[in-house]
């Protein structure tokens, strides 16, 4: 609901307590670290070299490619995710809980696994072509390039939008929709005029994650040979001793991200979305919409998405595993790598969730120029491609903190910086649903600001905070480039095992760790859904 109380509460009048702004400022400073290195590194080149790299034809083509890819993937993800969230969250779709789990699960499939699945189905001599050849089909449409990369990225990143939108739907007060119906609006009008505007912050938060993910993805674009920024940066880094062009390209990518963030900020507006009505919200489960005969098209829609994004990829992996075993490939025990993955990802999720809380509180409760700057900074890590972030930290570690270089601390730091925006986005959306008067009541009852956060704000926003932590955990499990560069010597994770195998085209060898990675990271996803069964 848009709170239009008769007393405007101009919160800018209250300064944030030190317990909030000091940690938030520290987080912001940490976030700025890699970017500062990047700028210094680019400045080492003269202006002529900077312009030479930035304005050559290849760079401009890469720029256009990246923008097109991000736009296509974001639009397609929203188009898939919003109906899915609504169907599984607010209608009587048969087995909607199961559909919700299945629709969220593609998040656990890493883009490089998705890319290799695409190639092995639609590529030359792939499953599709081999099974269609007897029917006289000689050639399939080209999978390499934009179509393949966009398809793969959409299928495995739409759950970002799905989860944030579903969370917002669950937190919504059904009375708002009822009020709209009572005011004479039909179901469809109500959805457009009341439900959708309520969901807007969640849609934008999710879409922002998808757009940033598409821009920084490395695995899928590499395997599907699409020249986006991150692939070009990696190529530059690998093929030349001079790291300066890579730094300049990376800086351009940061500028692109900054543009997207600025556009996002303009859509946010001044509306507030916490409930302003009296009493307590009824649980959303009371407001279930009957689909009637529309349930069949709805089931077909959900089925198609789950088939493409989950069943087919897992099926292909199982196929490779079985074929590899049949060919005598030994099934290696991967428990060491799995434990390493879980350990590092768990640490990263905890650190990111803790770091996100002060930033989100600052952004939601104390809006202003300084706080929105801090919030924007917190998005930076995600905008830096993993490979660039890793390079920056390698440099930083080698020059300023040799004790940390090559340790788990630096790796977890990189993960936390990289995936903090996910935690901030989810926490922010959850905080928007917590009424400020509830926090004021706690202060009036004698609790200091930090205790208020611990006893009231955090528990009320806990579903959002947990969702954020789980997202960080999942994406860290899949993270590849930073792991490749920053992991301590001999610290193999599932991601690095898969990459080593696929880059040498040992698909059968990659299948076992890929399946294990998917299985292990499915667990926190399940925890997210258990939360739904509990009250809220």
């Amino acid at each position, binding site marked *: 609901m848009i709170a239009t109380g008769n*007393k405007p509460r101009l919160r800018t009048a209250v300064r944030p307590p030190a317990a909030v702004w000091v940690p938030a400022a520290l987080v912001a400073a940490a976030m700025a670290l890699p970017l500062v290195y990047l700028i210094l590194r680019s400045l080492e080149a003269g202006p002529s070299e900077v312009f030479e790299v930035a304005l050559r034809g290849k760079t401009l083509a890469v720029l256009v490619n990246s923008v097109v890819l991000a736009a296509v993937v974001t639009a397609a993800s929203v188009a898939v995710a919003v109906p899915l969230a609504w169907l599984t969250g607010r209608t009587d779709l048969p087995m909607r809980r199961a559909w919700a789990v299945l629709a969220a699960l593609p998040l656990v499939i890493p883009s490089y696994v998705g890319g290799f699945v695409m190639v092995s189905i639609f590529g030359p001599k792939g499953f599709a072509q081999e099974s269609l050849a007897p029917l006289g089909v000689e050639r399939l449409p080209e999978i390499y390039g934009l179509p393949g990369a966009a398809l793969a990225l959409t299928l495995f990143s739409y759950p970002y939008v799905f989860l944030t939108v579903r969370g917002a739907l669950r937190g919504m007060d059904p009375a708002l929709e009822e009020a709209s119906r009572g005011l004479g609006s039909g179901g469809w009008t109500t959805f457009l005029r009341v439900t959708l505007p309520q969901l807007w912050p969640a849609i934008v938060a999710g879409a922002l994650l998808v757009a940033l993910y598409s821009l920084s993805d490395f695995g899928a674009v590499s395997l599907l040979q699409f020249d986006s920024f991150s692939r070009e940066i990696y190529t530059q880094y690998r093929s030349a001793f001079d790291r300066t062009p890579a730094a300049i390209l990376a800086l351009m990518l940061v500028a692109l991200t900054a543009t997207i963030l600025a556009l996002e900020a303009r859509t946010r507006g001044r509306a507030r979305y916490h409930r302003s009505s009296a009493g307590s919200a009824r649980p959303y489960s009371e407001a279930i919409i009957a689909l009637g005969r529309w349930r069949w098209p709805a089931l077909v829609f959900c089925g198609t998405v789950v088939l493409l994004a989950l069943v087919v990829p897992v099926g292909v992996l199982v196929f490779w595993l079985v074929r590899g075993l049949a060919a005598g490939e030994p099934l290696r025990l991967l428990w060491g790598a799995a434990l390493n993955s879980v350990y590092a990802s768990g640490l990263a999720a905890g650190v990111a969730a803790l770091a996100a809380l002060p930033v989100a509180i600052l952004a939601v409760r104390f809006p202003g120029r300084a706080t929105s700057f801090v919030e924007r900074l917190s998005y930076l890590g995600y905008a830096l491609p993993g490979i660039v972030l890793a390079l920056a930290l390698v440099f930083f570690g080698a020059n300023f903190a040799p004790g940390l270089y090559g340790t788990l601390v630096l790796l977890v730091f990189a993960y936390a910086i990289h995936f903090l925006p996910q935690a901030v986005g989810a926490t922010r959306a959850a905080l928007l649903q917590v009424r400020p008067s509830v926090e004021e*009541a706690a202060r009036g009852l*004698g609790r200091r600001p930090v205790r208020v956060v611990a006893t009231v704000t955090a528990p009320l926003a806990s579903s959002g905070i947990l969702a954020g932590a789980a997202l960080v955990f999942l994406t860290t499990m899949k993270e590849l480039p930073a792991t490749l560069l920053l992991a301590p010597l001999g610290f193999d994770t599932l991601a690095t095992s898969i990459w080593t195998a696929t880059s040498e085209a040992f698909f059968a060898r990659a299948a076992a760790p890929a399946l294990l990675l998917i299985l292990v990271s499915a667990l926190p996803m399940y925890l997210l859904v258990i939360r739904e069964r509990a009250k809220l």
Partner: protein
Amino acid sequence: MSETMIRIVGVTKSFGEVEAVRALNLELRRGKLLTLLGPSGCGKTTVLRLLAGFESPDAGEIEISGRLVAGRGVNVPPEERRVGMVFQDYALFPHLSVAKNVAYGLKGVLRGKKRDARVAEVLALTRLAGLEDRMPHELSGGQQQRVALARALAPEPLLVLLDEPFSNLDAALRAEVRSEMREILGAAGATAVFVTHDQTEAFSFADEVAVMFDGTIAQVAPPEVLYHYPATREVAEFVGEANFVPGTAEGGRLTCALGEVPACGECAGRVEAMLRPEALRLRALPAGEDTKTGVGATVLAREFYGHDQLLKLRLDSGPVLCSRLGGGPGFKPGERVAVEVRGHALVFPKP
């Protein structure tokens, strides 16, 4: 212990261009219930939030129970003010049960059995015994209201603030909850400030009423004084129906369209006189008969409320006035009446 619970001196608070509170002064003695009454947007909620510490004044000082809490470089945070607030939307913690909501403010104040005992005591006081384990969304509006009050009272605050606490209740429940709350606050011996824009609510709830317009207090007085001796014409109109007639005052007598009437008020000469509708008594005037006492008038309209009724009259000399009678048969529109004044008129200087 100071006998003065609240002392606000010259407090000003602006939000950007808007001056919500302007050089406001207010005092309240311990154990009293004060209502801040004013139209919406007059700054009354801001005064409450300044007292609670959710806003800090741009200028001026605030003392609570003799302790400076804001001004002169001091700004005591809300958690250290010992002020209990009951919010308009109740602001119950939706993740905590009734008992835990009430116990929230007792952490660090009382422990173990003592805390449980205090929770039980406050729940009994607010007639919530038996609902300890309910969640806020499982309660009715009136019950949620009492939980909000119980939670505010539990830590034995110096001062209880209530921000339009009845505005979310339906009319039938409102009067009942209001008298309940008054009893509870009385039994707790609390000093309370209550914000409302409803004059009936303000009068029936409070020992003293402060009327606020445009960020300043126009008058503070007990309800009956405020009603019969409003300080300004604006206050007179805000706290009930009022008739205004021009006239001449001299030595406690007013000469106006209603004849010669006893008057009180500071001014003399050409004045504006205020008469409450109850002060106008009516007598039926058969057709053709002349008035022996009082002045002649014609009934224009009638609003019947049950316990009383309001009649709109036009005096033969022109002015339109309003009279309140008991719930009896009364008069019909078109009937002729004779109007007499009982009591006195209050005179204001001519604007």
